């Protein structure tokens, strides 16, 4: 599904290489986790895949179902099925959460040549999905993420994911800033979306999120490369011994 080959990326404004040849394939139906120390390039990878400005791809490729996504605008990638759950969801004062989500859903449908969702249908669907994530009606009415707690923001990300039904979900440190209960709730939301046709790339510092979202494959990223790949046991190894051993091994 998602195929990243030899991806090299540098910051546009300074001559600083962040990704130095990332190779990664996420198959449909699978959950891949990327772990790694601070500054290893995990978040950069998520931004580059979703199309944020400020990064320059100097080599390599990234395709979704064979389609080159790096040449697409962020909205085209979204319509193609890429979704990034932000580490820091952006507050947008003045835009209602509902308006935002309905515009997003219908923009994507339009881009794919599908029929737009009617207001009634949208309401019905969003209410049901919000309920599962314990998002109350008031949160839906408020401006996007404004005044939301850390947990509410992350739940709102998962709600967007549930509404947009992407093919490829990238979760950037979704566990950061969450207490145990909030993390469980978010993990349940993600697990509910696990599906044969959908791939997940879960970026995290810690193993604990992976207790709740069980990965099929775990990658360790350091200094802009994937240095080790293994099963769920690799995450436990990190939890027990830290990154030092693995990093030493890779050198």
């Amino acid at each position, binding site marked *: 599904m998602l195929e990243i080959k030899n991806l090299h990326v540098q910051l546009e404004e300074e001559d600083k290489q962040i990704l130095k040849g990332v190779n990664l394939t996420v198959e449909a139906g699978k959950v891949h986790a990327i772990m790694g120390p601070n500054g290893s390039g995990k978040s950069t990878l998520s931004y580059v895949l979703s199309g944020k400005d400020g990064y320059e791809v100097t080599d390599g490729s990234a395709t979704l179902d064979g389609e080159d996504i790096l040449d697409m605008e962020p909205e085209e*990638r*979204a319509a193609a099925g890429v979704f990034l759950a932000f580490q820091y969801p952006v507050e947008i004062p003045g*835009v209602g959460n509902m308006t935002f989500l309905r515009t997003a859903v219908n*923009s994507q449908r339009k881009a794919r040549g599908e029929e737009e969702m009617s207001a009634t249908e949208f309401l019905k669907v969003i209410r049901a999905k919000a309920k599962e994530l314990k998002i109350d009606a008031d949160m839906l009415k408020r401006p996007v993420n404004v005044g939301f707690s850390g947990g509410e923001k992350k739940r709102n990300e998962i709600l967007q994911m549930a509404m*947009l039904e992407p093919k490829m979900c990238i979760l950037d440190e979704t566990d950061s800033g969450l207490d145990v209960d909030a993390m469980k709730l978010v993990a349940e939301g993600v697990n509910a979306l696990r599906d044969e046709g959908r791939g997940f790339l879960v970026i995290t510092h810690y193993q604990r999120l992976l207790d709740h979202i069980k990965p099929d494959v775990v990658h360790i990223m350091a200094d802009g490369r994937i240095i080790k790949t293994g099963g769920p046991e690799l995450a436990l190894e990190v939890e027990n011994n830290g990154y030092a051993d693995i990093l030493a091994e890779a050198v």
Partner: protein
Amino acid sequence: MALPQIKQDATDARLAALDMPQGGWAQAAREDALARVKAMGLPNARDEYWKYTRPDTLVQPNAPKAALLETDEALIFGEVDRLKIVFVDGVFSAEESDDLSMAHVTIDRLADAPDIHWAKDVYGVLETRGQTPVQRPLATLNTAFATDGVLIHVTGKAPKPISLIYRHESEVSDAILHHVVKVDSGAEVTLLENGPAAARFNKCMEVEIADNGTFHHVRAQGRDHERRAATAIFTRLGEESVFKSFTLTANGVLTRNECVIELTGDNAVAHVAGACVGDGDFLHDDTVFITHDALNCESRQVFKKVLRNGATGVFQGKILVKEGAQKTDGYQISQSLLLDEDSQFLAKPELEIYADDVACSHGSTSGAIDEEGLFYLRSRGIDEGPATDLLTIAFLAEAVMEIEDETLQDEINSRVEAWLSRRRG
């Protein structure tokens, strides 16, 4: 003191081009205003109060030509049940207006009001009060030479809004309108205004609000690209009274909206807000002066400007808290969203406070579209254009939300959306 020669000449030239309407109850006020305007002289670029907005074209003897906007867009407020009063190039049109009778309201035309009239106690009176500490000679000129306008006396709760519609049909029309509104104790009215009015429009409105009275004002200034307007609102508020005014300005080559508010009764509330969207050769100036002269009054100024293709926005807002006006709550915010590097926003926020137990805050910012927000919206599949529009509407929201009536809020928002969509052709 004699005026500088250049100001004297410009003032003389302008006055020579005008004829004062004669007779009736307003005669004395008009004569007085003429004497005052002669003493003050009309504004020029050297005046501090006109530092950011060149007044030349507002002062020159004849109106600069302004092409008529050709559009088949329906006029704003079309869906609102209201009493319509139409002016064409500054002249009342009985034919196009509704019957002026309505419960709890009497409406007379300035041009033919009877000899003895209640408006005598307001006409030119609030305007005169508003001349200190800063002079506003264009409003004084208006008091002297206004050819038409409405005199609205509200004695109870008006059953529907009064809607002033200004049509512009002549490319060289030079309209001077003066309205007077008197809201009695406990009475309530909503006044709507829309339309470009004339090639050049000088409008003055005096609003006297008695204790417990409520006055709502929502206006959409016409979007003819070349029209010019200098407007002034003078209001005085009694105890527990409410004044809320909102203005949307889309286009027009030059607009100066002055609002002079005097809170003279305890617990009075005055909100003045504006949203403007300007493109290219466009200058929009909001100049506000609020005087707190009573206990526990609240004032809010919320001004938002969206500027693109070299448009200019100006804000001059002052809160004056007089000695003894304790527990004043004053808020002022002026912000611009600059959609490109050619546009500019000039702001001069001022506070002058002589009481020691007050809360006054003010802020002024200029910025571009929030890139983080834009990426967030795009990453959810919303195209860059609509995403920018959403953020623009969001930027204006704080000002638009100052309108209490949601139907009117929607009317304003739909105009902003229409403006935004025109960019994309």
